[in-house]
């Protein structure tokens, strides 16, 4: 392998890693909710779409960028509270499958609602981040991807400090550790779940803006969940660091696979390679790389 070929491998890998961060961003929203309520929130993708659509529609109607961001943030918070109150609380103590089905329904309601309010046309979203690549030591890196990765990192730092230093965050971890123990010591489950859904709404907003800027804000934005699922399988459904590492692995491996395996099978493997990785992981380590191993005594 000569020097330029090596640089090319690095460039593909870095590009993959950065796009992997975008997958992680969506996956973290899932992890937050799965950890506290054991629900795979299928509506996360719809929340991503809803957030992006709300933001872009506000901006198009002349609302200043910062104000639109604040308003969308508030709306996502309210949406989280509403979901906890109207869907989760009445279904408390039901089986995970019931809850999963409820979030599946919720996904359609949110998607439909978003399009009912804001219409179905495709919106371009300009975050003011230049997409021009720049060069570091012979490697071209997308500026946008780098900013997106930095934003994701900031989000992870904020979430981590929230879970480490605030009362609500610590309560969240207690509930994730053992729900009954958390109830026994008097933690208010409803309040914690509301906080978590709000946090998931905020994550959805960040993911929605970044993905929206890249793909355009449209219905298919809610399909980014399909990119997050293999990430979750690989990293484990209940681990935030797992979601990040798995996002990076999936991002890099699918880009490298596209470039180096693609030609042998006629190309276009980027779309499904992540699932092959996830399938392999399921066979070897069903709990994912970082997930909690489930052993139960019957």
């Amino acid at each position, binding site marked *: 392998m000569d020097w330029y070929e090596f640089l090319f491998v690095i460039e593909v890998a870095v590009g993959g890693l950065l796009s992997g961060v975008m997958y992680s961003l969506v996956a973290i929203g899932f992890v937050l909710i799965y950890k506290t309520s054991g629900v795979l929130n299928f509506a996360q993708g719809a929340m991503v779409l809803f957030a992006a659509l709300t933001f872009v529609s506000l901006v198009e109607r002349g609302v200043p960028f910062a104000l639109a961001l604040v308003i969308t943030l508030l709306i996502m918070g309210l949406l989280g509270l509403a979901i906890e109150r109207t869907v989760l609380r009445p279904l408390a*103590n039901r089986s995970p499958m019931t809850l999963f089905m409820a979030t599946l329904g919720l996904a359609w309601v949110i998607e439909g609602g978003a399009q009912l309010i804001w219409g179905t046309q495709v919106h371009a979203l300009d975050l003011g981040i230049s997409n021009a690549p720049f060069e570091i030591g012979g490697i071209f890196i997308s500026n946008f991807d780098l900013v997106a990765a930095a934003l994701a990192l900031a989000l992870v730092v904020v979430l981590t400090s929230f879970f480490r*230093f*605030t*009362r609500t965050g*610590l309560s969240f971890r*207690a509930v994730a*550790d*053992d*729900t*009954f*123990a958390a*109830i*026994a*010591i*008097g*933690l*208010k*489950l*409803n*309040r914690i779940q509301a906080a978590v859904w709000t946090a998931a709404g905020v994550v959805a907003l960040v993911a929605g803006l970044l993905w929206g800027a890249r793909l355009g804000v449209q219905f298919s934005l809610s399909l980014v969940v399909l990119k997050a699922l293999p990430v979750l399988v690989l990293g484990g459904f209940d681990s935030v660091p797992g979601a990040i590492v798995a996002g990076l692995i999936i991002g890099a491996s699918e880009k490298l696979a596209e470039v180096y395996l693609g030609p042998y099978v006629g190309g276009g493997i980027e779309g499904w390679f992540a699932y092959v990785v996830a399938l392999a992981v399921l066979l070897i380590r069903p709990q994912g790389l970082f997930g909690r191993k489930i052993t139960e005594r019957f």
Partner: protein
Amino acid sequence: MTGLALSEPALQPERRSFASRIAPVTPVTASAAPALQLSGISLAFGGIRALKDVSFDVRPGEIRAVIGPNGAGKSSLVNVISGLYRADTGRIVLGGESFAHVPPGRLPGLGVARTFQNLALFPGLSVAENIASGLVFRRPAFAWLPFLPASRREGRATAIRVREIAAFLGLEAHLPRLVSTLPFGLQKQVELARAMIADPRLLLLDEPMAGLTGTEKAAMAAHIRAIRDRLGLSVILIEHDIGVVMGLSDRIVVLDHGEVIADGRPDEVRRDPEVIRAYLGPDAAPLAGAA
């Protein structure tokens, strides 16, 4: 080092106050208001009636057992008392307040602590941290700033309290260990310690003997008796092991198919033909009566 030496005497009163608390209390009179009163509790899951018009009370300082065969409704009853289930009808009087549904988050504040049949501990925390978590509900909002003087004072007071409770239950040697590395019997005692730390008035023990060895059962029974005798709290004991229940409790409620079929002192319940029928089957009743 001097700082530590200075702070030590300040902590002494706390230690003494616990010592006075674990001194034997005067027996409570029967006229005192009940620690818990259930009236007309019914609960159905679809067509299955798990609890039918269940009423009983728990007096202060009393060990009150709830027994019954499998599926009698014991677990449903615990879950109604602790607010995990919402009863279809009936009232629960607790700490002078009457509830149709007890909000689970308020229970510690009402002086109710509980343990679980299958353990509910935080596996990622140490024994000491697990015990201390029983005080979380009364933790002031500022406590998350670990560097504030008030937080540090609170932290020291908590550490002392944890040590006292651990000494009381013989858990001192295990305090720094990760709770998930302890054997099951010790984990049950950690759960008991966590329930005790906030000085509850009512202790709800859901099958405390389940899964314990003979020796561990004897130790657990001794602990339950000691807690009642010294702290003067009421205990609701949901238990399978009839031998333990007969020796330990003051009064026993017997449930069968969701109904109270007997309620009284252990010797009364032991002779009750309905109880014998429920436990041994209808054919055994005449035999037991003859014996």
